[in-house]
């Protein structure tokens, strides 16, 4: 372990007890190396978490001082129809984006699986949306979503013979338009994870199936998809953690509008906290979002266990 043989008396604080100092030095060094990370986590993750929990029980006032209100902030959230709608929109958006991205990602992964060089090019090109800056991409989509006939997307669907759509401008389509962009950005990520999973499928099973005369569909159904099951769960878990917290997309594309039709939990919390200065209610909203994420994660894990057994 440590250099007990080396004559280094200066390093030990108490020269009389070298074994003791050696016993302490290992862990001490370990904690020293960990200290920067732990300190940063403490200050910018854990303290805010507890501050949020604490402030959610107060009516926060900047100059008058905080006033204890107990669970009243939570009551406000539960009874408030705006919050109810925002939670519903978040869930719809999260589910729609997740399912859309996973299904499309799987189909595309199957289509471009293979060692060919040009497939590598297709993969790289298709992956670009994932690494791009959300805010900039959302600005581009906002322009493409322009509701007039001259809007980019309306021109494209015009080629297919579909009438011009209002996209973000209508209460009925704003949430779906945001979902469309999120799927566009989420699909390539899922596709890559599926591709990594497909590499691990046993090739001899395919050959055996071919010898038995199984169709492509049966091969897919009975060999490929079961082998990909762990990948599905990884993607679902990730989506459960990320899905409900969506903010930038909505903030840039619609900021919750028109008329609250695309308001999600995070945009509402942001408005409450920074525009209306209702920090107590906003903190409670954050805690609710955290609990919802936790519950969703647990549900996904339980389903996973059940299916595995």
């Amino acid at each position, binding site marked *: 372990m440590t250099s007990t043989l080396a004559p280094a008396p200066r390093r030990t604080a108490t020269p009389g007890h070298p074994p003791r100092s050696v016993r302490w030095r290992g862990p001490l060094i370990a904690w020293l190396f960990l200290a920067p990370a732990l300190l940063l986590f403490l200050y910018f993750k854990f303290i805010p978490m507890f501050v949020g929990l604490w402030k959610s029980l107060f009516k926060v006032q900047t100059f008058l001082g905080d006033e204890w209100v107990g669970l009243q902030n939570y009551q406000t959230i539960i009874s408030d129809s705006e919050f109810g709608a925002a939670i519903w929109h978040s869930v719809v958006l999260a589910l729609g984006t997740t399912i859309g991205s996973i299904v499309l990602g799987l189909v595309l992964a199957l289509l*471009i699986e293979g060692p060919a060089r040009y497939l590598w090019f297709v993969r790289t090109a298709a992956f670009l949306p994932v690494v791009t800056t959300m805010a900039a991409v959302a600005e581009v989509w906002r322009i493409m979503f322009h509701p007039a006939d001259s809007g980019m997307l309306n021109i494209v669907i015009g080629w297919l013979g579909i009438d011009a759509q209002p996209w973000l401008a209508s209460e009925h389509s704003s949430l779906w338009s945001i979902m469309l962009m999120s799927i566009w950005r989420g699909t390539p990520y899922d596709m890559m994870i599926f591709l990594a999973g497909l590499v691990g499928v046993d090739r001899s099973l395919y050959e055996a199936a071919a010898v038995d005369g199984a169709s492509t569909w049966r091969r897919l159904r009975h060999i490929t998809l079961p082998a990909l099951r762990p990948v599905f769960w990884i993607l679902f878990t990730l989506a459960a953690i990320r899905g409900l917290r969506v903010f930038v997309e909505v903030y840039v594309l619609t900021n919750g509008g028109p008329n609250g039709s695309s308001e999600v939990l995070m945009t509402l919390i942001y408005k409450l906290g920074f525009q209306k200065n209702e920090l107590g209610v906003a903190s409670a909203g954050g805690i609710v979002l955290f609990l919802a994420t936790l519950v969703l994660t647990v549900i996904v894990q339980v389903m996973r266990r059940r299916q595995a057994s």
Partner: protein
Amino acid sequence: MRFDSALGLESRRGPVATTGKIIIYTLMVVVFTGPLIGLLISAFNKTLDPTSFSLWPDEFTLENFIQAKDKNVYLYLLNSFIVVGFGLLLQMLVSVFAAYSLARKKFRGMTFVLLLMLTTMMLPEEIIAIPLSLVLSDLPLLHINLIGTYAGMILPVGAWGFSILVMTEFMKEVPVELEEAARIDGAGELRIFATIIVPLCRPALGVIGVFGFTMIWDQYLLPLIVAPESDMWTLPIALRSLRSDEEVGIGVLLAASLLALLPSIIAFLAFQRQFMRGLTSGAVKG
């Protein structure tokens, strides 16, 4: 019959199959890169009606980028680079140090620390946004106000669970014999760390470097909270303010969006292998 893929598409070579493949692959590339290529072309385009952007260059111009100067776009870009530069440096240092401890030391409480790291990854930063703004305006014990400072945008991204865990996994692979040999030669802890472990982990540094870059570059809510005045804005949060301008239309917005997109795309293309490795090893990006 050989199978390299589930559908066995590569073995189908007839004219119909080939045409079908070409159509599918072209469509994929067009759909996923179309908006980005459209942006690239439009940003250099002269006539821009504010409603749409064109996929065909009418008249090449740098006008949008020149006007961007008057709108402070380059100041925002500089702010972004300051934050990502120092933020990434700090994040990588912190990750390497923490990983060294987690991968190569045994101590009581290690499981607990690992659990803490996982918790931070399960806890999306959006959830703590509001209380984080309170904490940043008055750091507990230190009583420093970080609102309106670069440090306020840099320190919170300094520790990232993903980077630490990727680095830890990699460091575990470095053979113990190398370390022990150095110890017998009388090398101290820091020397072993700096001259043996870190150099051997260079590939992993690429992974956490490219992931950290895109993660910090993409930060939105944090600068939104920390920078209330426009002189501290980073480029992503400044885009919103460039939207509607009577005189310049959307030209400046497009130029600025392009500038905001390019760095992470370049980082991805340059470090593609490392990126894919990180993606499949961790499969966790939050």
